[in-house]
């Protein structure tokens, strides 16, 4: 009845604590499913642990490149993407004509580009698809729990239900699953999810980062309002849960706890040899590190809402690939994929950086004696992009590589 031990982490000590964690885990099935490194076979061979504990050499170069990539993408968004989107967005007149004379899009390429740049695209089918995606995202955690109850695990296959408490826990799992599937009292369900996440933090400490994506569901339920399929606060909540979750999935499970992912690579060698055929310089260590950087980059972009649809698509591909690689046990990854589909179909109303950029430009305008120009605006975009890359990408990497191992005595 205890979670399978990883090489470094012990199960909670007291029975009460264990029970709380198990019940919490039962409710957190979708989130824990993200942490597939912990439950697919991950016995690792010796590797260079020091690689992940010093911000120098290749690690420093890759970290700087990742921060630069984030900065470039943010810059491209404001200086290219937003302008192009504005150009391609139809006017009210054009929309009216499209409504009055339904016909295939006159400019299909423009429509596709507009869609991929997070713009609004009219279409009844899109609205229907979004409603279906929201419904699936709201109910899928229930199906995951039912699957767990049927297969004999609570959270994921790594946590089999055994012993005397197996039956009550599986019944509890079914009850919670039915609550989710019923769609009743969503706000209370959201509160329950937040409480469970808090409990998991207390019970598992750092490993609770795996459960952060459950906050996507927690906020989704918490902010739901009767008669509205999906509101902006729910969108922010989903973005926060999945974005931060994916970011930390890379930072913690592939850099701080690198043995988890390197162990997966050791047991599934084609995961390493495939990328090595494209990037011959990749070692097992750098494979784990670059995979982490990829997940962090796209998690951060998802969190910020920059190229939201393209980022959602990329993350859905990454998770879909897990299912293809590991098969049926990874079927629970359909949960985050459902979240990405919701983000993919919903038109974004701006990014988290919009207000920061505006304020930066205003400060620059003041500093320049209340004069501005397009060049100053570009400079502000540049400053915001660099700051985003440095503070949100490089700084966490630096902390995880240089400070965290010393702080936690690894």
């Amino acid at each position: 009845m205890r979670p399978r031990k990883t090489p470094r982490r012990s199960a909670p000590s007291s029975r009460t604590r264990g029970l709380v964690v198990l019940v919490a885990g039962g409710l957190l099935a979708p989130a824990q499913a993200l942490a597939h490194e912990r439950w697919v076979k991950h016995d690792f061979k010796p590797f260079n642990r020091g690689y992940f504990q010093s911000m120098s050499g290749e690690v420093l170069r890759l970290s700087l490149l990742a921060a630069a990539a984030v900065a470039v993408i943010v810059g491209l968004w404001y200086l290219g993407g937003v302008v192009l989107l504005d150009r391609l967005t139809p006017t009210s007149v054009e929309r009216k004509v499209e409504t009055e004379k339904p016909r295939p899009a006159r400019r299909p390429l423009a429509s596709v580009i507009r869609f991929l740049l997070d713009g609004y695209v009219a279409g009844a089918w899109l609205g229907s698809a979004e409603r279906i995606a929201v419904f699936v995202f709201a109910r899928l955690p229930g199906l995951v729990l039912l699957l767990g109850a049927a297969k004999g695990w609570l959270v994921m296959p790594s946590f089999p239900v055994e012993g005397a408490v197996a039956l009550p826990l599986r019944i509890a799992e079914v009850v919670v699953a039915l609550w989710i599937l019923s769609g009743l009292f969503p706000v209370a369900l959201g509160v329950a999810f937040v409480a469970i996440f808090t409990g998991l933090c207390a019970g598992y400490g750092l490993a609770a980062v795996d459960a952060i994506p459950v906050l996507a569901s927690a906020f989704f339920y918490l902010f739901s309002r009767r008669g509205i399929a999906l509101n902006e606060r729910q969108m922010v909540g989903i973005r926060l849960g999945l974005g931060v979750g994916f970011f930390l999935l890379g930072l913690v499970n592939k850099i701080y706890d690198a043995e988890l992912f390197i162990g997966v690579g050791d047991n599934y060698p084609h995961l390493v040899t495939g990328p090595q055929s494209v990037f011959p310089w990749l070692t097992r260590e750098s494979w784990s590190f670059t995979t982490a950087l990829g997940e962090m980059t796209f998690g951060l972009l998802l969190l910020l809402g920059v190229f939201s649809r393209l980022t959602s698509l990329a993350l859905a591909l990454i998770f879909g690939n897990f299912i293809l690689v590991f098969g049926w046990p990874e079927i629970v990854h359909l949960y985050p994929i459902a979240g990405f589909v919701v983000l993919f179909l919903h038109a974004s109303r701006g990014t988290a950086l919009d207000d920061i950029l505006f304020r930066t430009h205003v400060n620059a305008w003041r500093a320049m004696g209340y004069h501005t120009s397009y060049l100053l605006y570009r400079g502000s975009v540049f400053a915001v992009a660099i700051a985003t890359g440095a503070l949100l990408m490089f700084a966490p990497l630096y902390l995880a590589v240089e400070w965290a191992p010393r702080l936690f005595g690894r």
Partner: protein
Amino acid sequence: MAVYLFGLALCLIPLTLVWGSLQAALRLARRLTTLEAANFSLSVKTARPGQSIEARAHVVPRSSRSITVIARLTCTMFDHRSHELYASSLAMPAATNGANDYAVSLTLPDYALKTGLVGENSPRSTAEGSRRMLVVWTVDFEVRSAGGTVLLRRSLGLDVPRGRRPKTHLRRMSLLAIDTFSSIRNDMLFNWLVHLAACDGAVASAERRFLHDLLEEMTGMTSGGEADARIEQELRRRLVIDDMFLKRYVPLEARREFYRALYTLARIDGTLHQREMDFLADALRVFRLTTDDVKHIEGEVADAPAQDPAS
């Protein structure tokens, strides 16, 4: 999969650097090979609505190259991107023959918005969205080759501390846009009418009379000489408003009425010339109107050709 996607993200770095560097290098090369010197200045740094500003340029081309210098008075509103609210372009005539000096007088419109943050000093300024706009005025200089290629761009800021203050509770760009369009409409309409009248070569006498009547109605200008001077002035400049802004926020009816005025003038001599038709087609494009949208307007004007376009 994440490794490959990260690789793709990394590819954006060199691509962006190469593209940006190439653009900058091309601009610099074009500037260095075509111009020997270029200096720009304004007679004032602070102006009030209605005030005239002298824009000066000293541009020395290489090897007696033929160039034109244009000054563009622009009001831009920034949120997290830029939106041009108003722009008035004027070709700068040579001030002294052979001295490479150019000068032109630009007039800040009476309805000019105050520069600065919208709602900066308002008690409501802490409300979300109320400080989301920054209004600035600039004079943008452009040096062009005879073929129209832009050789150099330079922008100088202009402070308008006593301009019209946008309402502090203004939260949406659409209100600002409609407000601006309402203010600029007559000015812009007259400017476009003058260009429409002149597009087939010269302003015909019927068209000139029409424009005189319009000026008298709009501004009370009764002197024929003054009206002709104003028409000449409008011919030298082209007043535009950001078409993206226009199409997004100005109501359909307002844009239709603008087109009605243009069409009325074009039909004033009873026929539509090819250049006039081209001008009208261009207006439709700028105002994002379809032929279906204006079909009934054209029918009404054809039936009653003596309508007043300013009404």
